[in-house]
């Protein structure tokens, strides 16, 4: 009895192994079984434009491989909360997940997503010519763990940009897109209220939108990440940056500016209800779409520079495989398919997906052309920003307890903008709380 069962098990295992031996994308071999027949993959990512765009291609993957994909795209905070808990408990509920940029330090650092290097040169699971080195170094370094292994494939390097929704108003007032913070202040002072519109808006995730200003004024979050994690949120430069940023929000932002989340910002920009913003390229690029009311009046430029330089923020998200997944090989095939040159090229051509992380596509003249939004060479801005990012000022993101500091910054900016605390007091409080949070999380400072 037992030998019979064992034999049946071996046969079943053999069939499964045989299935995995099939190269992805090829026609099924003799017998007609597809490589991932009967496999259900749980894939999840937050509701950014790219994952939503990917939805319509998934049936192709299912057709090719025979797998069934359960694809979920919750909102940003819900996705992160769910994933954090799922990963922390080594759950097998997900097979392919998005490694969110503010959680990179925690998820990659704690080993909750597996290294992907072994898959790159595995001919059984990765099609020839897939070329893992094609991804921009600026986008892959953050996903490397302490041993230098790559733990996620970046699907976006979203850059912070300067963009106008109503460039016509700015021009009428005699201004172009600001290149420095000082110009930005002058311009906003002149255009705010024209046509009854607020001058400036950005989303209330200040742990993300404020940092470009913080670093532009010469401040930083940690003294020298990722080694020296002593927060430096109360330096004079940090206070000056906070003062400036909150002044922009308070004086030139709409009523209730502190309540604007990323999608509300995008919706308002596309309606032409705000004049100017510093926001993700992924969001502001939507202004140039046919569905936008401001298709003809939008304008784009690199994030402005401060006295200490230009520090446009880069948000990298990537596809990873949780350590608890029981279908890692199948999960990799999904990642390999979604990040293949062919699919990315199609998404670029047919859907206008432009935050591409593959150098081979970016360097095509066609890319440059298409990423010309309303006449602006956004491709160049994109490449320039990625190059700037290689300098490493985004290292603060890969610190495991960053979410705690992220919230302290949200709170501080909220306090200053609403007048509850002065910039000095609020940043000092953020500093104190960050230190105690980091210590509680086990960081030695």
């Amino acid at each position: 009895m037992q030998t019979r069962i064992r034999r049946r098990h071996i046969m079943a295992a053999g069939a499964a192994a045989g299935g995995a031996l099939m190269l992805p994308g090829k026609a099924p071999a003799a017998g007609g079984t597809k490589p991932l027949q009967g496999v259900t993959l749980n894939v999840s990512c937050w509701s950014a434009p790219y994952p939503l765009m990917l939805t319509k291609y998934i049936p192709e993957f299912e057709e090719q491989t025979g797998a069934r994909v359960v694809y979920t795209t919750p909102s940003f905070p819900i996705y992160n909360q769910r994933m954090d808990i799922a990963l922390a408990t080594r759950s097998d509920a997900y097979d392919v997940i998005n490694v969110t940029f503010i959680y990179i330090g925690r998820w990659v650092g704690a080993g909750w997503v597996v290294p992907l290097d072994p898959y790159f040169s595995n001919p059984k699971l990765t099609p020839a010519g897939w070329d893992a080195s094609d991804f921009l170094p600026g986008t892959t370094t953050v996903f490397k763990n302490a041993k230098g292994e790559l733990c996620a494939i970046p699907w976006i390097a979203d850059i912070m940009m300067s963009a106008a929704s109503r460039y016509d108003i700015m021009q009428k007032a005699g201004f172009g897109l600001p290149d420095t913070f000082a110009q930005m202040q002058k311009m906003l002072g002149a255009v705010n209220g024209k046509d009854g519109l607020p001058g400036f808006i950005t989303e209330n995730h200040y742990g993300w939108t404020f940092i470009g200003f913080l670093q532009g004024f010469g401040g930083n979050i940690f003294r020298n990440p990722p080694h020296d994690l002593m927060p430096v949120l109360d330096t004079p430069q940090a206070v000056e940056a906070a003062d400036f940023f909150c002044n922009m929000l308070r004086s030139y932002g709409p009523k209730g500016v502190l309540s604007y989340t990323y999608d509300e910002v995008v919706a308002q920009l596309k309606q032409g209800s705000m004049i100017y913003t510093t926001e993700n390229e992924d969001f502001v690029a939507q202004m140039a779409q046919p569905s936008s009311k401001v298709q003809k009046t939008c304008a784009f430029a690199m994030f402005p520079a401060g006295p200490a330089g230009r520090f446009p923020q880069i948000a990298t998200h990537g596809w990873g495989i949780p350590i608890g997944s029981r279908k890692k090989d199948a999960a990799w095939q999904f990642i390999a398919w979604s990040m293949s040159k062919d699919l990315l090229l199609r998404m670029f051509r047919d859907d206008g997906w432009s935050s591409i992380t593959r150098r081979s596509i970016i360097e095509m003249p066609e890319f440059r052309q298409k990423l010309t939004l309303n006449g602006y060479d956004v491709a160049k801005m994109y490449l320039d920003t990625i190059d700037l990012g290689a300098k490493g000022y985004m290292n603060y993101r890969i610190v495991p307890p960053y979410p705690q500091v992220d919230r302290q910054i949200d709170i501080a900016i909220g306090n200053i903008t609403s007048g509850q605390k002065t910039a000095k007091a609020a940043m000092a409080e953020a500093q104190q709380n960050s230190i105690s949070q980091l210590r509680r999380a086990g960081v030695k400072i």
Partner: protein
Amino acid sequence: MSTASTAAAAHSQATPQVRPRHRKIYWRRHAIHAAGAALLFLALLPVLWLVLMSFRPNADVLGAGLLFVPTLDNYRALGGGGFPDSFIHSLLASTGSTVLSLVIGVPAAYALARYRFRANKQIAMWILVTRMAPPIAFTIPFFLAFTWLGLMDTVSGLILIYLTFNLAMVVWTMKSFFDAVPRSLEEAAWIDGAGVWQAFVRVTLPLAAPGLAATGILCFILSWNDFFFALILTRTDAMTAPVAIVNFMQYAGWEWGKIAAAGVVVLLPVLVFTFFVRSYLVRGLMAGGVKE
């Protein structure tokens, strides 16, 4: 004084002149009716606005005008994204938890009402204390237990955790209903040879049926409306309607028409239920706290 005039005196102010008084009462009564209706309308305005918004075309959704061409587009858009499934999960979880709470709780309430256990007061206090704990107190232990037992993201898991608030409520409210049923009827049945639970089913339950209905509805409503437990303990397989709305809010990119439509769809079952059992519900709420 005759009973008729006592009644009249009790009903109105004691005075020899009846007709002008009646007219004054008539107007007073209708003034109060009008005031009640007006206040009700004011109180329900926000809900009405939400319903209006759900029918607005998206281009005009921010408009404040009352004239617009209604459209069903927002409702049609609810078809995808797991929203219909979440509705079914909510239905299953709420019904299951109601049935389970009643099955377990009603006999216990009867026992507490009829038999003087030594620990009656302590039990009542314990029940109150379980309602005091914030949901967080339960979510982590349940989270870990569910992960270990494989109940994560299942409707059964939700049914189980809804017992934490429904069971106590069933016991408490049904006990007060049973207290109001005179013992004499059951005692008569006992004398006739019926067992305790036989008498319960044949005599007491029918008399307490309105209370049972009210309590059942309350259980259903409380389960349907739960947000926190579903948020933390479900993902996709068992996502309920309230969580689906929040998901939907950012999926739809602040398209208020769609969000309003989703909100209306989630509140409808509760409103329908409430309408059909309104008198029972009111009686049930009142019995929950009023003692003679």
